[in-house]
């Protein structure tokens, strides 16, 4: 009967069709890879037993299950079988050993693979796992941005072992991205851009127009980006800026200063070099560059403004990093006279500092532009309200390429890193009417910033994986000492607890336990170079002795670490701890390789000629017991000294005091400078 035959044939056909799925199942690519691996590994094995062990491995999906890390399951090891096997060093992909990192090979079970590399851990096929197939899970982070993975857990600004990420974070902070873009944990971010209230008395219309055209061409250290404004927009904005009301008090100071008689340029030159301005500023490119270039400063700011600013910078910009130098009236005139003579743009037009005659209708248009471009985000954060000007950046690192607007940039690879890099390099190229300015990042910069942005995941990692360096409480006193610390801007270079910039190698958190008070007073009054090889040096702030005493007393009583013994010799005189043996140790351990003592020694560490006058023995002892405890990156070796030996050395250093103002230590000290 034909119907029955048809039924029989179609049943057989249907069975065959059903067999396709189990067949595909049996021929999955990881299975043949695992068989290849067995062969390769057993041929590399050193013993018969281990070769047999490799041969006996079942063909099966391998996975790392991280129950407390978002319940992650990473099956990458199904194909990457040799990642933790030293035997597979140099083997072909995907069987090779993972390169050594702080978390591998020890941390596979704790971190898995996708926590650093991204990609889809659940997948068992290469295109899906790596994210190269359409509609697969999140793609892997390209190797050049791999440090983005570090940044998911390591939240501090600077991450040891991740230089690109750290650089990216530093660049983001310096460029002030968070002023416009909201990111979790950065709500308190404030740009260091100056308030613009005194601008009409500071500079001229021509200069402002030059600056708005391209800030970096005026000052290479400028952090302000280029907004690519049209000449008309520049004109309108300039009129708006010059229409600002200068606060009466500051205007009075500037005008009074402008009327003062000129000072002595020669003395000014001496003062400038003594004050070590280039610890922060640059002069023709030389210096640290965290503050404006000075070589054309006299063609940027009027004499009156410079003088008034120098006398009290914080009155002009409460957020400035610039400390207040205690120059006398005459001395400050001398400094400005020197700046006026030498640090001038001789090619600039004569009227560069001529104030602009304000046209009200242009100024009104300028006001609109000021809002349109979000200038207020940096220059007047208080006026910006709670809403951030730009789109928020939280979770940008987990954005899928499909949800990004590539606009006109059809030339780009449809991937998040390429999109980010292009956004950083030429933000306006995506569509008309975009407002983001360009920051002049070079390829390295944009790679670093992209890395830092890719680290901004949509969800925070679990607490157990989040790593921020332990919080050190910042003790910032109020009252007169607090205002001294404010006025001298100690935190621009020194750290107190977690506050302050990491420029100086000497955090002030436990300074009171470290140095002797009398030395500190002298040092504050006239600081000298302790570490000759560092570029950043303590500026000579011309601090009056009473200020220095007050600060030193405060450091002595507040900034102490209870774990540093005040008297390691337990009441007995230091000489009982056998300083002679300490001296023998000093020579034996090779301390002089880095430290100057008398007339010889290396330049890396601070000189110890006057160690007994400078350092407290309790500190010396605590330091010697483990230098890295105080700062992870110090190069002073941890010799693992016994208590007795550390005490002996501390006792020896305690004997190193200038006996009398004799010639020898004096000469050594000069050598140090």
């Amino acid at each position: 009967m034909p119907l029955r035959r048809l039924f029989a044939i179609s049943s057989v056909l249907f069975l065959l069709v059903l067999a396709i799925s189990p067949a595909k199942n049996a021929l999955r690519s990881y299975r043949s890879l695992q068989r290849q691996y067995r062969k390769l590994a057993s041929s590399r094995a050193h013993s018969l037993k281990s070769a047999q062990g490799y041969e006996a491995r079942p063909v099966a999906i391998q996975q790392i299950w991280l129950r407390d890390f978002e319940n992650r399951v990473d099956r990458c090891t199904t194909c990457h079988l040799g990642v933790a096997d030293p035997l597979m060093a140099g083997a072909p992909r995907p069987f090779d050993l993972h390169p050594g990192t702080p978390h591998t090979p020890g941390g596979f079970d704790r971190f898995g693979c996708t926590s650093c590399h991204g990609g889809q851990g659940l997948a068992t096929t290469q295109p899906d796992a790596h994210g190269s197939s359409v509609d697969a899970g999140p793609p892997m982070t390209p190797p050049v941005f791999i440090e983005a993975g570090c940044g998911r857990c390591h939240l501090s600004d600077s991450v040891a072992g991740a230089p690109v990420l750290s650089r990216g974070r530093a660049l983001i902070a310096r460029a002030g991205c968070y002023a416009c873009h909201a990111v979790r944990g950065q709500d308190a971010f404030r740009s260091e851009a100056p308030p613009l209230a005194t601008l009409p008395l500071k500079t001229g219309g021509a200069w402002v127009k030059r600056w708005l055209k391209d800030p970096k061409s005026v000052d290479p250290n400028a952090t302000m980006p280029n907004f690519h404004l049209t000449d008309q927009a520049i004109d309108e904005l300039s009129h708006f800026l010059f229409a600002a009301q200068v606060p009466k008090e500051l205007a009075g100071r500037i005008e009074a200063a402008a009327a003062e008689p000129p000072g002595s340029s020669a003395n000014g030159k001496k003062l400038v070099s003594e004050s070590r301005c280039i610890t922060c500023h640059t002069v023709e490119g030389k210096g640290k560059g965290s503050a404006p270039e000075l070589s054309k400063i006299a063609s940027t700011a009027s004499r009156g403004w410079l003088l008034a600013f120098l006398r009290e910078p914080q009155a002009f910009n409460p957020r400035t990093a610039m400390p207040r130098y205690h120059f006398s009236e005459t001395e400050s005139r001398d400094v400005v006279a020197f700046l006026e003579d030498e640090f001038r743009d001789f090619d600039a037009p004569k009227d560069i500092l001529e104030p602009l005659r304000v046209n009200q209708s242009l100024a009104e248009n300028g006001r609109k532009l000021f809002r349109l471009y979000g200038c207020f985000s940096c220059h007047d954060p208080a006026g910006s309200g709670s809403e951030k000007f730009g789109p928020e950046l939280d979770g940008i690192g987990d954005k899928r390429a499909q949800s990004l607007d590539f606009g006109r940039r059809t030339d780009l690879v449809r991937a998040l890193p390429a999109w980010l890099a292009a956004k950083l390099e030429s933000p306006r190229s995506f569509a008309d009417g975009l407002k983001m300015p360009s920051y002049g990042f070079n390829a390295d910069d944009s790679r670093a910033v992209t890395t830092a942005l890719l680290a901004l995941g949509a969800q925070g990692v679990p607490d157990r994986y989040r790593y921020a360096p332990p919080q050190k409480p910042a003790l910032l006193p109020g009252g007169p000492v607090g205002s001294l610390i404010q006025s001298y801007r100690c935190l621009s270079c020194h750290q107190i607890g977690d506050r302050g910039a990491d420029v100086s190698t000497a955090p002030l958190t436990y300074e009171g336990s470290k140095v002797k008070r009398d030395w500190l007073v002298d040092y504050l009054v006239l600081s000298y170079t302790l570490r000759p090889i560092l570029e950043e040096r303590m500026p000579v702030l011309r601090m009056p002795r009473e200020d220095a005493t007050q600060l030193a007393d405060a450091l002595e009583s507040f900034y102490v670490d209870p774990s540093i013994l005040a008297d390691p010799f337990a009441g007995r005189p230091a000489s009982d701890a056998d300083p002679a043996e300490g001296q023998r140790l000093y020579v034996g351990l090779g301390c002089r390789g880095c430290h100057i003592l008398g007339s010889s020694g290396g330049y890396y560490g601070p000189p110890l000629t006057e160690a007994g006058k400078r350092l407290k023995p309790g500190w010396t002892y605590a330091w010697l017991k483990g230098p890295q405890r105080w700062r992870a990156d110090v190069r002073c070796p941890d010799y693992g000294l016994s208590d007795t030996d550390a005490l002996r050395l501390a006792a020896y250093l305690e004997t190193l005091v200038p006996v009398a103002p004799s010639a020898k230590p004096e000469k050594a000290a000069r050598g140090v400078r």
Partner: protein
Amino acid sequence: MADWLRGSAVYRSIVRHGTADTNRNRSLVIFENLFLHVHPVKVREKTLRFSHTYWLGGVTLVSSLVLIATGILLMFYYHPSVPQAYRDMKELNYVVDNGLFLRNLHRWAAHLMVFGAFLHMLRVFYHRAYRPPRQFNWVVGIILLILTLFLSYTGYLLPWDQLAFWGVSVGTNMAKEAPLVGEGIRFLLLGGNVVSENALLRFYVLHCVVLPVALLLFLSVHIWRIRKDGGVQGPPSDVDDPRPEESA
């Protein structure tokens, strides 16, 4: 050996009527079987022809059986919770043996069932099979169509991907627009005011328990009624009611 087996008490207790090809025996097989007795004892050969019904009801029935079978298997691998639901899709895709096949079979069978049900209804409509004595079965059929659509819709949310999430957001917002009871229906469906874990659980229970049970119930009635109403009705044979165009 085969004879011994056929003669054994166990075999005879299961296969009571042998395989004899007589009309009486065939009728007995149908009568005495719980599952087959809803089926007409006799089927005219004419009604089995493809052009008679286009087998559309049968296609729908078979795909619903496939859906039940694959659905039960899928339930072994699925947790109606966030975010495990979506991960279970991935597990089916990447780890479960034949998991992708299972899931795709379920999905395609579901499409086929909805499509088949629609065509079946159209066929019945154009063949005027909704008229007495089949008017009751037509109404049962409409209930079955609605149940099928609800099954299809509740299954849509279960993968918990973007498509599912927004599909259900849109769908429940449409329900909200119903006058007076709209808000209430939406709240009831979602177990809250947004598409959340509660909605997932509700849709899961509806999809795997409530709706299939209702479907099976009405399906039995539907098939039973076919027999009671005199078997399937093919194209109407009367030619006394030609369509206007044909008469013109």
